[in-house]
């Protein structure tokens, strides 16, 4: 099973290297080459140092891609580009879910977030069809206070996160932990009332969206 993962990454490394060799423009060569190098390192690392260390490497790689894409989401002037980068973030989060043994949630993440919700966004972007004119930048005091608040948030949260001790029971999770079966057990045996409430919320949101979005008759 582990071998399949290393082989898959080796194949990805070869494919991206081929793509880099075929590219003309220098930035494309650099991007595809970097991707190829990352895949190659992941495959070799995994083959020599074992699956746990492979997971670690994958975590750092995906976390890096995730943060870079998130920054691109908020820095693109064109909302369509933002949407595409947001899909990248969702796929990265889904990979992190798999690394964390939440396979069902990873599938839900891809189907609902990267699929349904992003299609909704892209439809709306098509519908509103605004010209992409660089929006006026936020005033300086606003930029400063937003960045300051975000920095304060990180200063408050990161030390707390790093000071948390790992739980003793970590690593002894049951087989088939994140499968549909176990999640269904958890949802339908222990959280029946919240599940019904959430389905009601979805129904109301659906009706509300139709009512709000309906074109008014003159």
């Amino acid at each position, binding site marked *: 099973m582990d071998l399949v993962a290393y082989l898959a990454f080796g194949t990805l490394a070869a494919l991206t290297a081929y793509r880099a060799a075929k590219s003309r423009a220098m930035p494309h060569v650099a991007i595809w080459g970097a991707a190829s190098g990352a895949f190659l390192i992941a495959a070799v690392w995994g083959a020599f140092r074992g699956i746990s260390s492979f997971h670690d490497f994958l975590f750092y790689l995906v976390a890096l891609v995730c943060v870079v894409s*998130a920054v691109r989401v*908020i820095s693109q002037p064109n909302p369509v580009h933002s949407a595409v980068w947001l899909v990248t973030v969702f796929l990265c989060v889904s990979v992190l879910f798999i690394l964390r043994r939440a396979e069902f949630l990873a599938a839900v993440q891809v189907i609902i977030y990267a699929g349904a919700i992003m299609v909704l*966004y892209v439809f709306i972007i098509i519908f509103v069809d605004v010209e992409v004119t660089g929006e006026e930048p936020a005033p300086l005091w606003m930029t400063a206070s937003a960045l300051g608040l975000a920095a304060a948030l990180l200063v408050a949260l990161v030390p707390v996160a790093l000071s948390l001790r*790992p739980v003793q029971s*970590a690593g002894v999770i049951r087989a088939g932990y*994140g499968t549909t079966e176990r999640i269904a057990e*958890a949802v339908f045996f*222990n959280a029946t009332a919240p599940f019904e409430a959430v389905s009601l919320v979805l129904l*109301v949101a659906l009706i509300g969206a139709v009512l709000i979005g309906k074109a008014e008759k003159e």
Partner: protein
Amino acid sequence: MATASEYMVLSSVLFAVGFVGFTLRRNILVMFMSAELMLNSANLNLIAYSTEWGNPTGQTFALFVIAVAAAEAAVGLAILMLLFRARATVSAADWRRLKG
């Protein structure tokens, strides 16, 4: 295996990025996308600690968060369409009078 602490650091960074996007961008669509970023960072944290404790309740909760995010996107984008129909703009700056 990366520890839950590292997942929490990543989720804090994602949340901060989403927060900055939500406050600084004027395009309502991108503001919604930043909100999705923040919801995803919360989900990441829930999943990381769910596995840490070996308790699937966190995954159940993340599932509910995804459902509520879908509802939020549907209603929010419907309101955006309504606003766009009234005045052809998606910039929050053009809707300052909604402050009252």
